C-alpha cells in the first residue's frame, strides 16, 4: 500500500513540476527584457528580431508540436499585416493593441478556413498547399493594387499611440518594448498550450496519428485547432510589422519570408518553444553582422550554416542541437542548485 502511495506522490509531483519555469528560462526572459536598457542603439534590429521570433514561434507550434510542415505562414503574416495597415489608414481601428488582437482574429479565421486543406496528405502535399495559399493571396494583393498600393506598398498609414499613450518614437524604443511584450504574452500562451492535455495530444498526433485516434483523440479537430492558433500568432507578427513601420508592402506575402522562417526555426531547433526565438536572434544578428562585411553575399554563410546543421542533425534536423541544449541545461541546473545550496547553508553558518 505504501508503494502505491509513493507512486502516487511521484506521479503528482512530476506532473506538478513538469510545467514549472526552469531557472534557464527565467534567465532567458530577464535577459530579453534587459536588452531594453542594455542596447539602446539597437532597437530597430531588436524589434525586427522580436517580430521574427513571434513569427517563428507560430511555425514551431504546428511543425514542432503537431508535425505540420508549412511554407505558407506568410499568408497569415501578410493578410493580417494588410488588415492592420488598411484599418489604420482608413481610421477604422486606430488603437494598436485592439488592432493587433483583431488582426489575430482575422488571421485565425483565415487559418481555420484553410486548415482543412492541410488535414489530408503528407509533408510534401502540405508544403505545396500552404505555399499555394500564400501565393494566391500575394497575387490577389497585387491585382487589387488600388486598395493595397501594389508594388509601391500601402502609403499613408498612421498608427495611433499604443493604448492612446505611448507614441511610436523615432528611436524605436516604444515599438521594441511593445513587440517584446506581445512576444512574451504570446509565448506564455503557447507554453500553456504545450503543457496542457491539448498540447500533449498534439505530440501524440505528431508521433503516431493512427494510435492517437485509437485512444480517442479527434486527430483532425486537434490539427485544425492548432493551425488556427498558429495562424493567429503569425498574423499578430504581421500586424506588429505594419504597426512599427507604418507601412505594408507585397513582400509580406513572399515565398522568401516563409522559407526564411523555416530556416530560422531549424537554426534554433523545433519542438521546445525557444527554437524560434533563439533562431530569430542568431539569424537576424548574423544577417546584420555578415552583411556589413559582404552586403551582397551574406546568404552564402546562412547556406553554409544550413549545410552544417544537416550534417549534424541528419534525420532529426529540427533536433540537431538537442545534445547541446541538454548540456547547457545540465550545466545551468548544477550551477543553480549549487548556489541554492550555498544560500540555504548561509543562515546556519551565520
Amino acid at each position: 500500500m505504501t508503494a502505491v502511495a509513493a507512486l502516487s506522490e511521484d506521479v503528482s509531483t512530476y506532473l506538478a513540476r513538469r510545467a514549472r519555469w526552469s531557472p534557464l528560462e527565467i534567465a532567458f526572459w530577464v535577459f530579453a527584457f534587459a536588452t531594453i536598457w542594455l542596447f539602446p542603439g539597437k532597437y530597430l534590429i531588436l524589434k525586427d528580431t522580436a517580430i521574427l521570433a513571434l513569427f517563428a514561434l507560430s511555425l514551431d507550434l504546428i511543425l514542432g508540436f503537431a508535425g505540420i510542415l508549412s511554407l505558407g505562414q506568410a499568408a497569415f503574416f501578410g493578410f493580417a499585416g494588410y488588415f492592420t495597415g488598411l484599418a489604420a489608414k482608413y481610421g477604422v481601428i486606430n488603437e494598436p493593441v485592439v488592432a493587433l488582437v483583431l488582426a489575430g482574429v482575422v488571421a485565425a479565421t483565415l487559418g481555420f478556413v484553410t486548415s482543412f486543406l492541410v488535414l489530408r496528405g503528407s509533408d510534401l502535399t502540405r508544403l505545396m498547399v500552404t505555399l499555394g495559399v500564400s501565393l494566391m493571396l500575394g497575387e490577389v494583393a497585387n491585382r487589387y493594387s488600388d486598395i493595397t498600393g501594389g508594388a509601391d506598398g500601402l502609403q499613408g498609414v498612421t498608427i495611433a499611440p499604443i493604448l492612446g499613450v505611448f507614441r511610436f518614437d523615432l528611436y524605436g524604443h516604444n515599438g521594441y518594448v511593445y513587440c517584446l511584450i506581445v512576444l512574451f504574452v504570446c509565448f506564455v500562451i503557447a507554453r500553456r498550450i504545450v503543457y496542457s492535455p491539448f498540447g500533449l495530444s498534439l505530440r501524440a498526433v505528431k508521433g503516431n496519428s493512427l494510435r492517437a485516434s485509437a485512444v480517442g483523440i479527434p486527430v483532425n479537430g486537434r490539427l485544425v485547432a492548432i493551425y488556427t492558433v498558429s495562424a493567429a500568432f503569425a498574423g499578430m507578427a504581421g500586424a506588429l510589422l505594419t504597426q512599427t513601420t507604418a507601412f505594408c508592402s507585397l513582400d509580406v506575402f513572399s515565398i522568401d519570408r516563409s522559407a526564411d522562417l523555416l530556416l530560422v526555426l531549424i537554426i534554433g531547433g523545433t519542438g521546445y518553444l525557444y527554437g524560434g526565438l533563439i533562431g530569430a536572434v542568431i539569424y537576424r544578428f548574423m544577417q546584420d553582422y555578415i552583411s556589413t562585411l559582404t552586403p551582397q553575399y551574406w546568404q552564402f554563410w546562412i547556406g553554409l550554416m544550413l549545410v552544417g546543421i544537416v550534417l549534424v542533425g541528419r534525420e532529426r534536423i529540427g533536433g540537431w542541437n538537442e545534445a547541446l541544449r541538454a548540456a547547457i541545461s545540465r550545466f545551468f541546473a548544477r550551477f543553480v542548485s549549487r548556489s541554492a545550496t550555498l544560500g540555504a547553508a548561509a543562515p546556519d553558518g551565520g
Partner: protein
Amino acid sequence: MPILETIGLEKRFGGIVAAQNVNLAIEQGARHALIGPNGAGKTTVVNLLTGVLKPTAGRIVLEGRDITALEPHQRVRLGMARTFQINQLFLDLTPLETIGLAVSERVGSGGDWWRLVGSKAAVTDEIVEIVERFRLADVMHERTAILPYGKQRLLEIALAFACRPRVLLLDEPAAGVPEAERQELLATIAALPADVTVLLIEHDMDLVFSFADCISVLVNGSLFVDGPPEDIARDPRVKAVYLGEELDA
C-alpha cells in the same frame, strides 16, 4: 444481447476479398478469441471493428448502437479500445505522459489548452492505478523508445486500458515477447477486470486455450466455426484447416 456484434461484415480491396459475411457475436464480459491461419483476415476484422477501415458491406453494432459509420476516436468514446499487433506507441513520450494523455482524453479534458496535465486529481489517481496495474512504475519516466520490448508491450495494453473500454480488442498481445517477459504479460492479461469484455486475436494456441471461454475461427475471410474451447479443440474440421497446419509446421 451481445455487447458487440457484426452483421454480414464484408471488406474488399479491389478484387480481393479480405472479409466476407462475418457474423460475430461477443457476449458481455466474455473472453472471446478470434483465431485463424495467417492471412485469414483477423487484423482486417479488427480494423473494421475499430473504424480504421470502412466495410464494403455489413454493420457493426456496439451495445445496441450502430457504429458502422463512426470515426475511430468516436468508437473509443463509446467504449471500444484496441491494441496493435505491431506496437503503435508515442516513442518520444514517457509511459506516464502516454497514459496521462489517454486518461485526459477519456475524462473529456483532452482538448483543454488552459489546464496543465494532471491538475485534476481524478486524472492523477487513474494514471497511478494504471501504471501500477501494468507494472510500469519503474520505467514511467523513461522515453518509450528505449523501453524493453516486454514493457512496450505492456504499455501497448495499458494505453488501450486507459480508455476504460467496455470492449477491449487485443491484437496478438504476446507476439514477439521474449520468454523471460512473457509471464508478466500473460499475468497482466489474465488479471483484466471481469466486466471488461475481451476479444483476443491470437496465434499462440496455449494462450488462446488458457484464456478464452469462446473461440471463433476465421478462414479465408469468413467465419468458419465458433464455440467453447473444448468443442473447437475437438472439431476435426478446425484441426484440418488450422490446428493441423499449425502442428505440422
